[in-house]
């Protein structure tokens, strides 16, 4: 297995001087490719903050971040073009689907690979396969407004997968879904991690989803406690 995500002594302080709030105080962990990790903590503990730093969206206050073999942060960004890293290496999934309302399902899924200048035929083939795999083969030309919340969330997952990223960062992807759909999304993410050798971090509140995960990252006073999930727990 190769490293998907590694962080060392990562820190984030919001604000300055008297208003400074230290949210992440030296977090360290590692997620291998092919692993699904759960990130859990009470609300306001810094889960999104951590995820957005790993996703090169939010600048840390210090520490190191590796994505695959590349060190992207070493007390400062190692590249000016964080957006290209995001586009090429990372798939994002959020609590809400955030699909582009004026693009149909297929277009939403194809947009990023098109931006990466991949061949059109390949993009289409992969997008169609992905959507088939996610049970949306019949909905290629539907608009997001015509789909249910669960269907749209699956389209969002397809969009995150469309560039074949090494890393998927999912911030409470099941929070807006009922328990049945939450289970199927967690199961799906696990399956993707295994089949596509992706390192996935899934933020969740729901303890019932932990058995799907390989490892649990818990934020404790700004640091990370890592624990492996017992293999017999895995469904």
């Amino acid at each position: 297995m190769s490293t998907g995500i590694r962080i060392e002594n990562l820190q984030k302080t919001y604000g300055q001087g008297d208003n400074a709030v230290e949210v992440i105080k030296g977090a360290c962990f590692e997620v291998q490719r092919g692993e699904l990790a759960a990130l859990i903590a009470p609300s306001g503990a810094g889960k999104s903050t951590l995820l957005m730093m790993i996703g090169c969206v939010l600048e840390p206050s210090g520490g190191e971040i590796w994505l695959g073999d590349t060190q992207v942060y070493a007390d400062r960004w190692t590249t000016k073009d964080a957006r290209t890293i995001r586009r090429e290496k990372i798939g994002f999934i959020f609590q809400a689907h955030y699909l582009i309302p004026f693009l149909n399902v297929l277009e939403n899924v194809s947009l990023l690979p098109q931006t990466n200048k991949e061949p059109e035929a390949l993009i289409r083939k992969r997008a169609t396969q992905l959507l088939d795999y996610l049970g949306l083969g019949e909905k290629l030309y539907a608009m997001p407004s015509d789909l249910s919340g669960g269907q749209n969330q699956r389209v969002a997952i397809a969009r995150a997968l469309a560039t074949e990223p090494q890393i998927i960062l999912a911030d409470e992807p099941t929070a807006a879904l009922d328990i049945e759909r939450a289970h199927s999304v967690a199961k799906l993410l696990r399956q993707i991690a295994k089949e596509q050798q992706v390192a996935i971090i899934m933020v969740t509140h729901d303890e019932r989803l932990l058995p799907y995960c390989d490892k649990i990252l818990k934020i404790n006073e700004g640091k990370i406690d890592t624990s492996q999930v017992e293999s017999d727990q895995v469904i």
Partner: protein
Amino acid sequence: MINLAYKDIRHTLSKFLVTAMGVGMLLGIVLIMIGVYRGMADDARMLLRDINADLWVVQQQTLGPFAESSRLHQDTQDILRALDGVDKTAALTLQNIQLYNRQQQAVRVMAVGFDPAGDFQIIPAQRILAGRSLRAQHFEMVVTDKTGFQLGEQIALGRDTYHVVGVVQGSVSSSGDPLVYISLKDAQNVQFSYSNPRIRNDRARGLLGQNTQLVNTVVAKVRPGYSAQEVAEQIETWKHLTAYTHEQQATILSRNVIERSSKQIGLFTAILVLVSGIIIGLIIYTMTLEKIKEISIMKLIGIPSRMVVKMIMQETLLLGAIAFVFGNIFAHLIYAQFPKRVVLMWNDSLLLFAIILTASFLASLVGVYKVMKADPASAIGG
């Protein structure tokens, strides 16, 4: 590659079209305004073109006969004709008068007086719709169709009754009033003769022998081989008169007669264009704000800003272009309803198109600024 602007517009097509139609009406008004100006400028030169004289001779140091009043003796025409280089001359009077139609409504016209026996053609033959030009020295009138008077109609003017012997098409004065033509003698009577009480009064004050042999201008044609400019200089040097060439008179008309109106209309037009630009800017701004969440997400997942910026710019330019098309349709539908002449010219339209595209481009920068500022980290807030 997906064209985001096209997809977005298709998604909200009716809203987009209604918006474009609204802006289009505004642009239509701008086109009408420009057309009013064109009509005015064209009307102002119509009489000049109709008479098509090489020289306009007026009272010394006046800008007559259109921009300033001018009086000269009628015999000036004979003196000028004797000059080397002058071919034909005609003495003209110009005066604003009020006529009454059969419904006793006042009709404001400009009366042009000329000698029916003269050899200088004042009414171009192609303008005559019905009847003929003036022939008799008294009580005949040629009217413009716009006055509403008919061929054969009797019209009272002063103490006399005139007979309509001809109808011409579309002749107007420099201020847009319809023209009527009467004989020079009649015109002099109307313009320069005084009422009986006034004459008695003048006699009592010792002012005798009123001269009614006055005209407002003498127009002339120069012989082939002579330059109008040189003949004009000769007239000014020897005759205590001022002479303008056709081009000079045209310049006086546009500088002095329609300048204020054109500035007025120009200012109006500029404001309207500015308002259109601001409105397009506001529309694009709100269209961008409506999408700001999606735009932040796009930036977050790694879509380059330039793609989003391209979308905003294309939408803005398309809005401007469609509005421009609607504006032209709108202007062409309504322009005939305006009382004064509205001349819609494609050149003006194209110029406006260029201005609107520029304004749209500038307006889109507001949206673009919003896009550049959108923080991807804020997209997932909470």
